[in-house]
Structures are given as structure tokens and as C-alpha cells.
């Protein structure tokens, strides 16, 4: 079945079976392996991408149902060679250990920061209920987001 979508700004035409999951289309057909698969039940969040600007679990979406959609993956959030503020904070504050859950975590958190550039700690933790990490115990991730929030707050302060 033909499905046309936009991935990271580029058009993608694929002929896939209806049962193919969006995450498999992204990984196996488009070749973007930054998006990970770690559970079969839409719980861990390793496969989170943005569909039409909203963070969604790409293992719970049929590729054919993404026909016409604008999809952004971890590979598409920044210019090559540059990191977003969130990525920089996660790198510098060690908010990633094995790195497997990290792309999904970032795609999830980017929506949080878009909605609320200065989240507090409970807001960050609650938002992360859809992302499981077994390495960090989440603290370093939370610290990194708090730093981004702090930077946003001081930038806002500075702009006044």
C-alpha cells in the first residue's frame, strides 16, 4: 500500500503492507535508525517521534496511517553538527548512559519544552511517565531539562 509522508522535511514515498509499523518504516525503509524499538506495548517511549509536531510513539502507529503526515525523528531536530540546547544539556550533564532510550526521551521532552519552556521538576518527571530508562535513574535527565529551563528563564529575563 502506498504511503506518502514527509520525514525530516523530505518527502518519502513507500509501498508497505498495512501492518508495517511507522517505526519499522522509519528504521528499515527510510534508514533512520536513531528511533529505537524497546517494547512491544507502547510503554517505554524509545520510539517517540513527532507526528505533525506532536510527540507520539511510532510503534503504536501504522505506517499507512501516517500517510500525509509530517514526521520528525531525532535525526531531524537540529542542523548537522549542531545540537539543540536540550541535547547539549543531556550530553554535558550525563543525562544519557547507554543511550538507547535517549532519542525517544529527547523527542518527548522537546514537546514539553515547546509547551512550557520553564518546567519545574515535578512537571518534568510527570511528563516523562511515557519514557522508561534503566540506566540513569532519571536524575541526570531531570537535571539537564532543569538547566534548559533555567537558560530559558534567564534568556527571558535578559530580553525584558
Amino acid at each position: 500500500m502506498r504511503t506518502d509522508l514527509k520525514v525530516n522535511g523530505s518527502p518519502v514515498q513507500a509501498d508497505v503492507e498495512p501492518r508495517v509499523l511507522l517505526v519499522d518504516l522509519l528504521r528499515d525503509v527510510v534508514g533512520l535508525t536513531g528511533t529505537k524499538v524497546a517494547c512491544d506495548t507502547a510503554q517505554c517511549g524509545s520510539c517517540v517521534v513527532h507526528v505533525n509536531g506532536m510527540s507520539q510513539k511510532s510503534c503504536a502507529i501504522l505506517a499507512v496511517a501516517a500517510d500525509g503526515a509530517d514526521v520528525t525523528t531525532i535525526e531531524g531536530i537540529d542542523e548537522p553538527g549542531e545540537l539543540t540546547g536540550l541535547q547539549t544539556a543531556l550530553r554535558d550533564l550525563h543525562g544519557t548512559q547507554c543511550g538507547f532510550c535517549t532519542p525517544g526521551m529527547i523527542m518527548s521532552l522537546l514537546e514539553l519544552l515547546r509547551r512550557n519552556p520553564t518546567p519545574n521538576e515535578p512537571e518534568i518527571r510527570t511528563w516523562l511517565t511515557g519514557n522508561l530508562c534503566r540506566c540513569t535513574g532519571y536524575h541526570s535527565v531531570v537535571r539537564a531539562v532543569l538547566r534548559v529551563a533555567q537558560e530559558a528563564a534567564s534568556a527571558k529575563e535578559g530580553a525584558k
Partner: protein
Amino acid sequence: MTQETATQRVFGAAIPPRENAGFVRGEAVFTADYTPPGTIHMELLRSEHGHAKIVSIDTTTAAAMPGVRAVITGADIAEKLLPLPCIWIPGGVESHFPPHPYGVPGAGFVLAQERVRFIGESVAAVVADTPYQALDAVNAIVVEYEPLPAVVDPRAALAEGAPQLHEAVKGNLNAYWTCGDKDGTDKAIEAAEVVVELDIVNQRTINNPMEPRAAVGEYDPATDCYTLHATSQSPHNHRFLLAALVLGIPFNKLRLVATNIGGSFGTKGYLYPDMPLVLYLAKELGVPVKWVDTRHGLMRSTVQGRDHTQKVVVAGTRDGKITALRCTSWSNLGAYPSTIGPGVATALMGRSISGPYEIPHAFAEVYAVFTNVVPLGAQRGSGRAEATYLMERLADRYADAIGMDRAEVRLRNMVPPEKLPYDNGLGWTYDSGDYPTALRLALQHAGYDDVDRLKAEARERGKLLGVGISSYVAICGVGPSTRMSKEGMLGGTWESGNVRVHPSGEIAVTIGSQSTGQSHETVFAQIVADVLQVSMDVIRVYRSDTEKAPYGQGTYGSRSYSVGGPALYLAAQEILLKMRTAAAAFMGVDQSVVEYRDGVFSVPGDPDKTKTFADTAMALWYGWNLPPGMQPTLDETVFFDPPDFNYPFGSHIAFVEIDATTGEVDVTKYVAVDDSGPIGNPLVVQGQVEGSIVHGLGQVLMEAARFDDEGHLLTDDLRSYAIPRATDAPFFDLDRTYVPSPHNPMGVKGAGETATVPAAAAVSNAICDAIGVRDIPMPITPEKIWRALRDGADT
């Protein structure tokens, strides 16, 4: 406490791990991301029964399905692939294993032979052009099973008339293993003023690293060589075992590559059926064969952790001196021994039961038993966590029995620093430490003297506040080869480091261990940068490819940094020594007058005589005018086999608040004081500590693998098996002490799993403290707390 390090040293600096850049971009390649041209896909048919005879397997429909290249069953490979081996057996005792044709202990088949013994056992493999086609064909295989009676409880498995798993293992008993002083312990308990007993189930857990396992097999007919990319935390070891004992091919013909690994916590140090299968099928079919597990598959087939059922006793005087400790444990090995499971289940647990305490008489006995559940392996802190749990629960019970403060009881019984090294009478000789100082520091952080006020204040808010202490010694750095041979390890446990200086002065560092998230590319570069006084930027760390890396034993038992680190440190020192000798010769001076600082060899008082690190490297590469006997280039490998283990220690204190009406528990604050010796990168170690503690909280509060009586796994995905989320992690107050280990030249000790070791007991003790009950079995759910509160103190 603060670590005393020279200023500007790279060792000890909180450098953000360089590998993080690839992780945050999603560019880091994991095994499932590796797809060589022409790759086709394997899926496994797994048993649906805990115990059954395979009457027949009909693969005709499956074989005819679109895209299917091969369907194989146990019968197809019986003569071609040998059973998997077990290489860590219970040491020093008689033990019984399934057979292996080479006489080594067997550990199950690549594909089931006539019988399945646990849910998830591999029964057949399908290879097809796409994973979708392969799974369709797997589902089209018709297996006729004749269910057999199953047994899932280790004590039931030892009973007369219990279903028998292996012909070679009478009564399902792999081994009866003991350590310590049985008679003395029994007599001391009999004569004691105070005796406290507990029945503990240290429940089976599923590690659940975020990355499920994966393997990609390639075969090159031109050279008759195989390459395996796999989620292996012991690439060299797995290469050896696969070539020699499973595939039966020359060692030279197998290369094993581990790319980035998405967490392990003990699970990826084992051999699994998929590893030889993808290689065998790649050769048979002439194309690369890839297999990627799912969460559901992982839950049913990747080794699981803990699972000790214990009767434990502590005895002591009325004035607070512990005189004896006894532990009887039934360890559930599952249906087959895993690669190193039986050793983990016996020595790592039994020898560790007395923790940091000086206990005159201690004895542990372990019945290692086969049952119809998933094979047992290691889970972060394995053995030591189970030991610490029982000791720390008993310490609280004993303190309560004699009416003494729980911290005071611990302080009175801890091995005093002046008695170290200390033989614990169970087989470990603690190398160094200051246990009371760590506990006092933790008490200070916790504001322990103020706890009564905090409890009263919480009561006013309608909450029950509890405080739990847990002190530990964690044996780490699985290392001394001869010593490990006595523990039943069928192999060496040294580790390696290689330093090669390029003519440009840049440095290639190659290690034998394998990161599963511990930032090896950074922390090992720091060691070399520190010794050679060069910038981190010129150092690149290679690993994980048996064709390129020096032999190493891999990453487990907190050994990469504490055994592999010193190997690399010594290799760097050898490089420096050679460079100093060469530089002296090039400058025409005696090397005793040569000073080395920040990348420059110089002669004090003679400013004309300098030679940079890079110049020296270039000169050694040219090889002109070398001192007599010196070989060109700089390339040093050191294999380090430590004289003994290292023994990190510490004390954790958990604060919980309980809602008495619902039983909901909130871990509000968690103090951890750990000692892993000198710390190479505090940022990395902090991450390990935080993650370790949350792993422990998972076990005590929510995690449990549950099987029904037929051996069906009831918790087979993350809808039915809970692991901690961001909202579960408490406020941390972390500190450490820095006692160096005498067993390696850097003084370093393990840190990757130590903080898991005391965590479950700290929280369990806090909960029991809050509600005033004797014990609540893990996982301690709100309902169990609510029932304990309802039913009163003797639950």
C-alpha cells in the same frame, strides 16, 4: 567528603562523556541498527510450555511461505551445533549438569531437543527476507507438545517425586554448596542469648535493559571466516566459547564485534542460542542473518536475576554483639544453568552474607536447583544484593529484639578499620575500608539524631515516616584468575589494556572490556591522559572487536574499571618509561635527569634540551638511532590479574513516608555514602550510583517475575512487569569516602553496581520502621503495607 587530587589532573575530573554526543543525536550504532547488504532475518519459535515433550514439529507450511529461506528445528542441528556450555560452576563441591560432548558442563541446547524445559526455550528458527515474513512463518510452524508435569519452586523441585528436568541431574540438584563454619555457627546460635530468624524470598526479577538483545551473523566463503555482531558484554570470551564449544570451528575463523550496547545489568554476558544460529545460518544461506529480540522475547528468554528463598538466623548477646549468622538458601537456577549462573547463585551470595560485620561464626549453604523457569543469571549487584538484604533485615530485627538503636548495633559490630585486611570466615578477605566512618557520614547527612522529631512532624501530616539503614561490602572486580578457579570459574579473569602512540603523538587506547553504558570511551581515555599528561582530545578509545582489541574478559562484576583500568594504567606507564628512555637518548643525557611535564621531556637547567611527546613518538616511529635494544614504535599491552578482588563499601539511609489509609509509600529522601576508592570521573560514577539505587528501589517496591505452576510467565511484557519511572525516583543526598584498594596500582574499586547492593534493604528497613512490623516480603506493594498495618505488628 572531597577527593584529594592534584589540581588539573584529568583523573578525577567530571568530564562529560564524549560518547554522549552520539547518543543525544541518535547516531550511535547499536546491534539492531547494523544491517550489512543482503541481510535477511531470523525469528525464533519459543516454547509455550514450561515443561513438555515435543511430539512432532511440522514446518511444511512455514517453509513454503513467501520470502522464507530456511526453517530449522532441533533435529536439523543436533549433529552440527553443540549445546551451550556453562563456565562458572559452584566451586569446590560436587555439581551436576546437563551433558556437553566435550565434557564441560552443559547449559542447554541451541534449539530444543525432543523436550522443552522452560517457557521461551528456542524450538525452531525461521529465516526470511524480512522480519515480518519470518515471524509469519514462525507462527505457521505446528508443534505438537505433550505437556509434562512442571515444577517452578526450588524446594518443591527437591522433593521426592518432583518432576525431573535432566537425566544427568538426579533430584534436580545442581549443587549443595556451603561456606563458613557450620558446627561453630550452630553451637553459637544454640548458646546465644538472643536469636532472630527470618524467612526471606528475594524474588526473581527481570533486568530489562532498554535494548533487547540482537545478533547479526556474517560468513565470508572466500576466507571461510565468520563475523558476529552481537549485544555481548564479553566479546572475547563469547568468541572463544562459541568457536570452541558450540560451532566447533577454529578460533581464528570467528570474529566477534560488539557495537554500542543499550544497557545490560548482567544479562548480556551470557551465551544465547541466537548467537551460534545466525552464524550457522549465514554460512548455510550465504547471506548475513540478523536477529533482533522483542521485549516479550526478552522477558521469556534473557537470563533473570535474584530468586533466592532463604531461612536466615542471626544470634547475639543482649548487649549488642552479633555472635553468629546462618543462611540456608534455595537458589532457583531455572531450567538450565546459564553461562555463569551457578557461580553467581552460590559464591557471590553465600560468601557475602556477613556484610561489613565482624561475626565470629557464620555459615551459608545454598541448594542450587533446576526448575521449569527461565535460566537465572546476574542482575546488577547479583549475589551481594541478596546477601546484604538478609543481613541488613536481620540487623534491624536483632536491634529491635535487644532494644538497641539500629545504627548503634551496626557500629558496634562493624569490622574496625584497624582489623583490615579482614578474613570474613566465609571466603572473602576484605582488602581495605573504614565502614564506621561511612555509616557515621551517612547518619550525619540523614540528620539521624533528628529522626524522632521528623516522625512526629510527619504524623501530624497524617503520614508514617520510617528510616532504614543498610550497610554493605560489595565484592567487586571479578579478577584474580587462580582465585576464581577455586570459585569454579572455568577460565581466566584478568583484563587488558593497550596503548599505542601514533607518530603524530595521538594515542589509540584499546581495551578488552565492553561498555554497556558506563562511558568507557571517556573514563579509560582519562586514565591514559592522566599518566601521559596529554590532552584528552588526542586519545581515541577502541574496544569491542576481537580482531582489534587485546584479549579481555569483558564487563561484569564491576570489573572493567577496577581490573581493566589498572591494566591500561600500567600500559601507559610502560609507554612513558620507554619514551623517557628514548627522549634521554635523543637528547644525549642520562634518563635520570630527564623531567616530563605536560607533554614535554626536558632537562632542568638546560633549556636547549627538550623533546616533545609528539617528537619523541615520531622519532620512535622512524626508528633511527634508537638506544641499543629498543624496538621502534610505541605499542604496549598489559594484562592485569589482580592479587584479589576489591571491596567497595558504604552505608545508605532511606526515608519513606507511608499513607496509612492506602499503604502508598513514597521514598522521600535517600542518603548514600559509598566508597569505590579514588574516582576517575565523578560525573560518570554519580550516574552509576543514581541508576543503581533506582534499580534497587524497583526490586523492593514493584518488580517481580511471576510464573504459574505450569511454568507460564505471567509477567511477560512491560504492561505486567513494572519498572521505576521518573516519578518514582527519590531526592538523593550522595556522598562518598575514598579508601584506596591495595589490590591494584590505582587503588580503584568497582562502582557500577555497588549502590544497588544495599538499596532494597534500606527501603525495606524504612518501611518496616514506619509501620512497626517485622517483615514484609518484596515487592512491598501498597496493599501489602495496608494489610500489615491492618493486621498488626506480627505480619
